[in-house]
């Protein structure tokens, strides 16, 4: 691996040559055989059996298009990253972990300001303000707005059906938080605030977090 060359860095830079490569010609399909590299399209499927491609993000795109109106839309790759959980494909595809952390903090921050507006400083830390952004409510929001089809993740155990145990709630909540994080990083604070005020913390909207949190109990 090391070539001991006594010449200078300059000559070194010009003499780098790429040596031979091993190219993989065969992608295995069908049953898994150890040592063979599988065809991606075979196993890159979400629990609903949807293939990993840009078409699946159309519902999310439509959902956002009314929000962003005539402003430029979020690019498709970012939307796909937003709807991909870390558990999918062993993290080899861009995933939403950090976006979710960031978006989650923003959501928490905004809901605390919302709680102060409605109930004063003493309402912070109460059960109602905590429930507003619980995993269960956030996941229900994704389901109610029919964004749950195109989410890529991997079930911990295929046999578990209860959504609070098999990880579905957690993954869906992460996607919503990542959506907020992605909007923030791509479009800035104002539009994200608009999104939160119109869609998440809007009392008149039956699908908002406030109404979901009321009904879920």
């Amino acid at each position: 691996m090391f070539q001991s060359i006594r010449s200078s860095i300059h000559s070194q830079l010009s003499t780098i040559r790429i040596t031979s490569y091993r190219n993989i010609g065969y992608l295995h399909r069908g049953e898994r055989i150890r040592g063979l590299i599988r065809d991606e399209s075979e196993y890159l499927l979400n629990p609903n059996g949807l293939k990993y491609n840009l078409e699946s993000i159309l519902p999310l795109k439509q959902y956002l298009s009314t929000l962003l109106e005539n402003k430029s839309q979020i690019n498709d790759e970012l939307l796909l990253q937003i709807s991909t959980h870390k558990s999918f494909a062993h993290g080899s595809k861009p995933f939403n972990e950090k976006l979710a952390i960031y978006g989650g903090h923003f959501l928490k921050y905004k809901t605390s300001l919302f709680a102060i507006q409605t109930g004063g400083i003493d309402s912070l830390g109460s059960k109602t303000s905590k429930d507003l952004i619980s995993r269960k409510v956030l996941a229900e929001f994704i389901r109610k707005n029919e964004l749950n089809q195109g989410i890529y993740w991997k079930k911990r155990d295929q046999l578990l059906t209860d959504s609070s145990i098999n990880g579905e709630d957690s993954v869906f909540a992460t996607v919503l938080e990542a959506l907020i994080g992605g909007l923030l990083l791509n479009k800035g604070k104002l539009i994200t605030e608009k999104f939160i005020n119109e869609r998440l913390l809007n009392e008149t909207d039956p699908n908002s977090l406030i109404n979901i949190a009321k009904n879920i109990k």
Partner: protein
Amino acid sequence: MQSIIKSSSSSSSSVTFIRIRQFSTSSTLFNNLSNSNKTIVSEEDASKSAPLVALHKRLNLPNDYKLGTLTRALTCRSSRGNLANNYGLNILGKNFLSYYVNEYLLSKYPRLPLPVLNTAVSSYISTESLHNVGKYSWGIEIDETPILNKILNEEPKEYSLGKLRFLPINQIEETGITKLTSKSKDEINSSSAYALGVRSIIGGLYISTQSEDLTKKFIYDHIISRKLDLSKMFEFEQPTRELSRLCKREGLTKPIAKLLVENGRLSDKPIYVVGVFSGEEKLGESYGSSLNEAKIRASVNALKNWYLYKPLNNSVPSDKDYKPSIIDHGIVIV
């Protein structure tokens, strides 16, 4: 003498007059009273507390920030008395802090891996860190004087409003007195109390000014402006392997280590400079006293170059003139 004192206390300055007497006894017999009837301190009472006024001015808090709010921020839930406590302010301050520190780090280093990001955030806003802010940069004092001493010293009732009030864990043991009650769950140590105080002061700033921008600026000035060297926070277990996984994911040519310069190979202190190249691009370079060491160091250097990439524009999403920069694809999973 009395006339001097009156003239000075009538102004807005922070002067107190205390007659010191020596007492050897101290008392901690007073129990925690219930916090059911909470009162918010009036502005007039609060302005009589010299440490409170001084703290307000020292932190350059705006005039909208009422002294009563500052008193509330310094009153922990466990403190005795019936003053309004900082429970809500603390939560608000915590939300502000965690959002803005996360935003700052994510915008400044978009590719920072999550474990390092979380550690860096907690370096800024952990209890220990905020304790340092409260104690060693803001100079907040703890209200430690026993009540009996306060009475005997003729200390004004309002004086202790400017100090941090909480129920400490390590109460002074008195000889001949056995504590029968078990440890209360409200008891906190001084560093948690300091952290509560600092977070609440930040929460109180928003409550007083209703301005997110002012609060953000305050957080940047006092919390984020401290120096933290992120490049010293990494420890890689398998740097060479991780680098090759990274190159594979990003579609780069497989990384190859090449010896650039060497000196003293036959001596007992040889030195090698190795660069890691992907195709013709140099990813990282470092030195070592053996070829393997230099290669590992070079890989670490390349990984740090990648993870600590700083975009040129330094705006954050909450800025008005925000320009989006790159969005990271996530940590490399080996």
